[in-house]
């Protein structure tokens, strides 16, 4: 049986890893390479690396990946600032296994089709920032500043048709708040698609992971504050979940 995934998501800015609250107020949490080493040594299921540098320089992300992938024997997803097929190619060549694309697909849905045809659907993760506005969950662009025209449900379905492999859902309202996942939103998203989902925003403790896994089927738990502001590790998270009969990786 397929295991439930716990996926630390790193944000990368000015050559450092940072963590914010509601997509702002970023705090420094360390250096990329040593963090990858630590999470690799803890047999982490998978990691995500998103470049949030204002300049969105693919070169700096590639340089970090080239170095960090030497210590990374787990799947690595990279994203942030992807504008072209050659950007994707460069990230993959630098050591990424999958890429996460957000803005470029909002601007041009055909870019999703092109990239999934070129690199395979399984390689392309569609990143979506979601915020509740006037009682409705909306797709957001520009770092959560502008509402996107299409509804969340339609957008997810369109992306599936255009070749999305997975969805990486960022719940802006909960990002960095440590108030737990928005389980209603997680369930709603799963009702829109059968594709694997990485759901992130709000995880504070192992029980939050448990709650998410307990009410979803194909959803992986994305998290960061949980691991970087405390002495929690993926190993402890998995043993907590195993004791509660959640099917996570054994080792």
């Amino acid at each position: 049986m397929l295991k439930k995934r716990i996926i630390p998501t790193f944000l990368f800015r000015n050559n450092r890893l940072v963590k914010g609250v509601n997509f702002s107020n970023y705090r420094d949490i360390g250096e990329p390479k040593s963090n990858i080493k630590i999470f690799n040594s803890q047999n982490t299921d998978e990691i995500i690396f998103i470049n949030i540098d204002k300049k969105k320089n693919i070169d700096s992300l590639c340089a970090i990946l080239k170095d960090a992938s030497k210590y990374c024997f787990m799947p690595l997803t990279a994203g942030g600032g992807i504008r072209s097929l050659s950007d994707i190619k460069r990230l993959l060549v630098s050591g990424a296994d999958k890429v996460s694309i957000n803005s470029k697909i909002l601007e041009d849905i055909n870019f999703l089709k092109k990239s999934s045809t070129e690199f395979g659907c399984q390689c392309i993760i569609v990143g979506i920032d979601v915020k509740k506005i006037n009682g409705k969950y909306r797709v957001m662009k520009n770092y959560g500043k502008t509402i996107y025209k299409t509804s969340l449900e339609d957008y997810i379905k369109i992306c599936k048709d255009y070749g999305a492999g997975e969805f990486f859902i960022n719940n802006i309202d909960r990002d960095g708040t440590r108030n737990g996942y928005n389980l209603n939103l997680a369930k709603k998203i799963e009702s829109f698609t059968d594709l694997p989902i990485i759901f992130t925003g709000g995880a504070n403790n192992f029980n939050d992971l448990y709650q998410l896994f307990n009410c979803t089927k194909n959803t992986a738990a994305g998290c960061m504050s949980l691991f970087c502001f405390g002495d929690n590790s993926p190993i402890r998270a998995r043993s907590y979940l195993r004791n509660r009969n959640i099917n996570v990786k054994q080792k």
Partner: protein
Amino acid sequence: MIGILDYGAGNIRSLRNALLKIKQKNFIVKVKKDLDKCSKLIIPGVGSYFRAITKLKKKKLIHSIKEFAKKKPVLGICLGMQILSKFGFEEKKTNGLNLIDGKVISLYPHPSERFSHVGWNEIQFKTNSKIFKNIKKSSEFYFLHSFHFVAKSKKNVSSYAIFKKKIVSSVEKGYIYGVQFHPEKSHETGLKLLDNFCKIKC
């Protein structure tokens, strides 16, 4: 020396890093004559079956790989495993390397219910394969695919995994090996498997 086939359809870096970690000398095989220098060959690969075969054809590597496989060990990883088959149906029906009889078809019966097998899954061994030496039963590996290998003969299936149904997770025929999962991305267990392959004597 372990050759890693680079035909423009794979994350070569991850595999090189993995071999570096287990201290196995390796080099990139780009053209036919590079094959003479290696004692074993690893075929990585991500993307589509059709595109992979097209690239191999362009590089005039199909025949040489088949000749190589008659004498020396070969390990196909993910798409590299799938193209060992007779033919694949990704994008369009395409003839494969035909090293292990079987076909590669979509995991989903109808296009409307497209899904991928993504994540860690445990595998069950069917045979005492050399590549699983000292690897515990029910070990977990990382999978990332939406097509799968259907072997003509069960004898060539060395392990399987459960994803909605029983799917082939590795194939084997003589010194030809194929794994659907990514050993280079499966922590220590995956590195152990690569080490086992590198140490096979024939």
